[in-house]
Every structure is written in structure tokens, then in C-alpha cells.
């Protein structure tokens, strides 16, 4: 402890440099926390998936479609409580083309049966069911575009080109994080009826609710077995597995983000290392004096490493505090509301916070290794010669 005082005081010796270094560490840590939270939050979307829901898609890829009649076959499988289907529509708001949102054509009655977490008033449900062009939207999307119930909106089709007119029948909220709050759902019939005959009665995927989640895997096998001998085979999996396979498409992005987070930490280490190395160079004579009066190389190395770790700790604490606020109360809220499908819970995980702080201290100490070794190896006579 008696030596720690010297290491700590050395940190405050060149206040401007220390502040700049700590600012560097702080920004690096904020970036690290944000990037790591993207990775963990993205992966955690899988954890929020409904446990009693199965998804069935084309065996080759979910870009390819299934015949509509498959839904009835699935409903007949023992253990399946309800089944519905949907098509990805891919609409854009012509007034704000850059803003992405999910738009899907769904079979309204069965959709509400399978996705129980969608919360609408009875009037809204009735209005939706009673009008073929009616649509419901999440409250976040409504807020973003300023859409109100009863408003007529025209969307631009991307997969299905043209202008599509809708009337907002309801604004839904959700009772679970398995559903995002910025989607646009409308009648599948509206889409299907407008297609050329050869494109009609095709569905993007089938979602089914099962009696017993424990038997999900067994029911999934039963579903796929029905279609084994048909022209189009299926693959059925839990919603969690389906999301995992969806995430798999972004595997490279997640890997890249992981690499970026490591690079950020390395940059932080170099910032600390550079500061400490400069300090050591400037204090050659002082270390020479200390060696002369009896301090051993290990003491000198300890002072340098202590200083380095302390800089890491200071930067780590400030970076963690600011990063926590930035992620949890800044971009976190925004992403949860606007990209809830990808990031249902965008918050700094405790493990990420612990890793960030521990990493800052540890990498701070590691950054000091080289300067510490150099300081410890100083030749006493040469160092003292620098004095006068």
C-alpha cells in the first residue's frame, strides 16, 4: 500500500495527458460496450422466442414458398393446437423510404390465435377482420410515422411491386418480447387475390402452436414426415431454432463485430501503453535516483505497472459509467423500439460490464509491461548521469 501512493500520484503528474488518455479509454470502452451489446442482444433475441411455437419453411431456404394447403396438413398433426401462415411483403413507406420496418401478409383469425402476445382491443380486432384492406401496426411504428387508427396509408411494394392501399384498423402492443412493436400486418387475402394465378396460394412459412413444448421436436419431425414424399419438402423447427438459423445468415457480421470489439480493446491498450512509455522516458532520472537509494528493479516495475493498471481502472470506471448510460438509456431504448425483432432487449449485460472493466484494468497492466521492463532494466549509473 505504501508503494501504491507513488504509482497513483504519478498518474496525476501530467494531468492533461492523463485526462486525454482516460478520455481515449472512455470512448474505446463505450464503443466496446455498444458493439458487444449488439452481439449479445442479437443472440439474446433467440432467448425471447416463444417456446410453444414451431416454424415450418421450405427445406431449401425460407426464400422459397410452400403451398397454402400445407397449413391444413399441419393442423391435422397430433399436438398442433393452431397453425397460421404469413408472407414477407417487404413494403416501404414512400414518404420515408429509408426507414425499414417488417410488413407481412397474415391470415388474421389464425394469426391472432397463434400469436397470443399481440394485444389489440376487441374493436380493433373487429375492424381488422371486417375490412380486407385493414392493417394493424405496432405502437412504435405508429409513433415513428405518425399514423393513427382510421388513417388510410399507401405503401410501395418491393417484392410485389405497385402502390398498396391500407387502412389502419389497430395499433398493437405486445405482452412478450417475442414479437417486435414496429411491424405492419395486413390480410393475406388482399395480397393473394391480387397475384397472378401461378403465384397464388403460396405461403412464406407456417407457424404453429403446440400443446406441449416438451414434445416440440417430436411434433416437428411428424410435420416434416408428412411432406417427405411430396414435391416440396419442409423443415420444421422451434421458433428459437428458426431464429438461430435466421441469425446464422448474419454469422459473418457477428464475427466481424466480435473482431471489432477485440480491436477496440487493443487500441485502448496501445493508448495506455503509449502514455506510460512517455512517462517512463521522462522519469528516467527519477527511477535512476530510486535505484540508487536502494529500490530494486521489481519495485520500479511495480510502480510502472501499478500506474498503468490505475489508468486502466480510472478509464474503465468512467467508460463503463458513460457507456452504460449511452447504451441503456440512449441507443438501447431506440433499438428496442425500432428494431425490436433483432434487439428485443438491448441492454449492457452484467458479463459485458464485468469484462469491460476487468479488461480495462488487465489490459492497462499488460500495456505497462514493456515500459515497466524497460524501467526495471535501466542502468543506474547511466540514469544518474542523465541527472547532471
Amino acid at each position: 500500500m505504501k508503494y501504491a501512493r507513488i504509482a497513483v500520484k504519478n498518474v496525476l503528474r501530467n494531468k492533461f495527458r492523463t485526462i486525454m488518455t482516460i478520455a481515449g479509454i472512455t470512448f474505446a470502452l463505450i464503443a466496446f460496450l455498444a458493439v458487444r451489446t449488439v452481439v449479445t442482444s442479437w443472440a439474446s433475441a433467440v432467448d425471447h422466442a416463444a417456446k410453444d411455437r414451431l416454424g415450418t419453411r421450405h427445406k431449401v431456404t425460407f426464400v422459397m414458398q410452400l403451398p397454402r394447403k400445407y397449413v391444413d396438413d399441419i393442423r391435422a398433426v397430433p399436438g398442433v393446437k393452431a397453425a397460421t401462415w404469413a408472407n414477407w411483403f417487404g413494403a416501404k413507406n414512400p414518404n420515408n423510404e429509408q426507414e425499414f420496418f417488417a410488413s407481412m401478409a397474415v391470415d388474421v383469425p389464425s394469426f391472432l390465435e397463434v400469436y397470443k402476445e399481440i394485444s389489440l382491443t376487441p374493436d380493433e380486432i373487429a375492424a381488422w377482420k371486417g375490412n380486407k384492406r385493414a392493417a394493424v401496426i405496432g405502437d412504435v411504428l405508429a409513433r415513428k410515422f405518425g399514423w393513427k387508427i382510421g388513417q388510410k396509408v399507401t405503401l410501395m411494394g418491393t417484392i410485389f411491386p405497385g402502390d398498396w392501399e391500407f387502412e389502419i384498423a389497430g395499433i398493437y402492443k405486445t405482452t412478450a418480447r417475442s414479437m417486435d412493436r414496429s411491424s405492419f400486418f395486413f390480410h393475406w387475402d388482399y395480397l393473394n387475390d391480387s397475384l397472378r394465378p401461378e403465384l397464388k396460394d403460396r405461403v412464406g412459412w407456417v407457424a404453429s402452436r403446440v400443446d406441449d413444448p416438451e414434445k416440440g421436436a417430436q411434433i416437428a419431425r411428424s410435420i416434416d414426415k408428412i411432406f417427405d414424399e411430396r414435391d416440396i419438402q419442409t423443415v420444421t423447427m422451434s421458433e428459437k431454432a428458426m431464429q438461430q438459423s435466421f441469425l446464422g445468415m448474419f454469422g459473418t457480421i457477428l464475427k466481424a463485430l466480435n473482431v471489432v470489439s477485440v480491436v477496440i480493446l487493443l487500441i485502448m491498450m496501445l493508448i495506455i501503453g503509449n502514455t506510460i512509455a512517455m512517462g517512463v522516458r521522462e522519469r528516467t532520472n527519477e527511477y535512476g535516483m530510486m535505484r540508487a537509494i536502494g529500490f530494486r528493479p521489481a519495485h520500479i516495475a511495480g510502480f510502472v505497472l501499478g500506474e498503468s493498471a490505475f489508468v486502466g481502472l480510472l478509464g474503465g470506471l468512467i467508460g463503463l459509467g458513460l457507456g452504460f448510460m449511452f447504451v441503456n438509456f440512449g441507443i438501447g431504448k431506440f433499438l428496442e423500439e425500432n428494431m425490436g425483432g433483432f434487439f428485443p432487449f438491448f441492454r449492457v449485460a452484467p458479463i459485458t460490464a464485468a469484462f469491460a472493466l476487468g479488461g480495462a484494468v488487465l489490459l492497462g497492466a499488460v500495456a505497462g509491461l514493456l515500459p515497466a521492463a524497460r524501467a526495471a532494466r535501466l542502468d543506474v549509473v547511466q540514469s544518474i548521469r542523465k541527472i547532471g
Partner: protein
Amino acid sequence: MSETSTTAGSKGESREEGVYRGTVEQKAIIRLVKVGRTYWRGKEKIEVLKDLDLTINEGAFEALMGPSGSGKSTLLNLIAGLDSPNAGTITVGGVDLTGMSDAQRAKWRSNNIGFVFQTYNLLPVLTALQNVELPLLLTRLSSSERRKRAQTALRIVGLEDRMSHFPRQLSGGQEQRVTIARAIVSDPKIIVADEPTGDLDRENANDILNLLERLNNEFKKTIVMVTHDPAAAERAHHQRHLDKGKLT
């Protein structure tokens, strides 16, 4: 294992006068025998000290003088255990330094040598008291005991009212007095001073030399001082001149 030698009684007396008044038997605290120190500058061999014999008695106040490059600082570093000779033996306080490892020499220095440098070399982030306390961090003394001893050392050098001042708040003379307090705080037998007045004006230089004299007279410290300044050297009991690595 201290050795003895016979020297004249006091400053200014010839050896004969000393003998006439009665010889004083004194212990040799520093003894160098056939010491050589060579450095290499690239392929060029530089023989700084060669076959040097030197004996300094306990309680002496010696000045080492000589032109630049004569080997004074090298000799001081060898006496203080900062450097090792290429040849010969160095015995200080009965301990043979030539066979010691770096770590052993560091421990020995902390117990036996006080250093006074030309440019003071205080840690700017520590107060005068903390700077003086620095060598005591290497001991097992308690915090309060360390503080007490550092306060005593500062009182001896007349800086009891500057204990909480940082080096930047002190004059050059005061900084050098803090350095001297740091040199005596662990109560070493020997103080080595390398140009202790080199950066000071005459008045402050005189104060420092008075202080060194007092440490020598009252506290019986053996002082070996390298200096270019003849006036400073005059204050020592004995002056030695080095030229081209040899005592003249």
C-alpha cells in the same frame, strides 16, 4: 573487518605535525585496492580508472576534484556501490562490494549510503516530507515511525516549516536541503555528494556546505564529495585530485 590506518590529526597539519601531537588511530571505512574501471565506446576502450588505491577513514570529509572526464564521478559511483570495477577490490564499512550482486548492492546502499545529487532529483508529486520518507519505504518501519524520522531529518536541515511543500514551491537551496534530509533519514554512515553546490548561488552553496560540515562534525557522517568548486573543496578536511584516472 575494519582496517586501521595512521593519519595526521587535523586539517592543515603535516604528517609530521600529527605525529608530534600524537597520532590518531582511525578506522578506514572505504578502501580501494588496484581498482580499474574501463568502458567501451563502440570498439574504443576507455580506461577511466587504472590501478587506483584509496583509503578514506571513518568520519572524514573528503573532496574529489579534477577536470571533466578525470574519473571523479566513476570513482564516486564505485564507492557508493552503484557500479562495479573491472579490476581490484572495494571494501566499504568492512564489506567487500566487488563480489556482490546488483540486488545485494541495492540493499546495501539503502542501509549504508546517502546520496546527494547536483540536481536534487526530488519526486515532484511528493511533498518534502514524503520525499524524505522515500528511502524508509524500503524498511519495515511503521508509517508513523517513518513520518517521525522524516520530520527529524527535515528539522536537522532546517526545513521544519516546509514539510508539506512540493519541490516546485521550494528554492534551489531548499530543494538541496530536502535531498540532504533524504540522504540522512536512514542514518547511513557514508554520504556521497556529486557536485552538491553545482546548481546553487554562493550564499545557498555556503548553507549547503555548512550543513554538510555539521553532518560530518555533529553526526559523524563520512562525506565524499565530488566538486569542481575550489571554495567548496576548501570546506572538506581533505582534497584529492584525479587526473586521467589516477590520484595525484
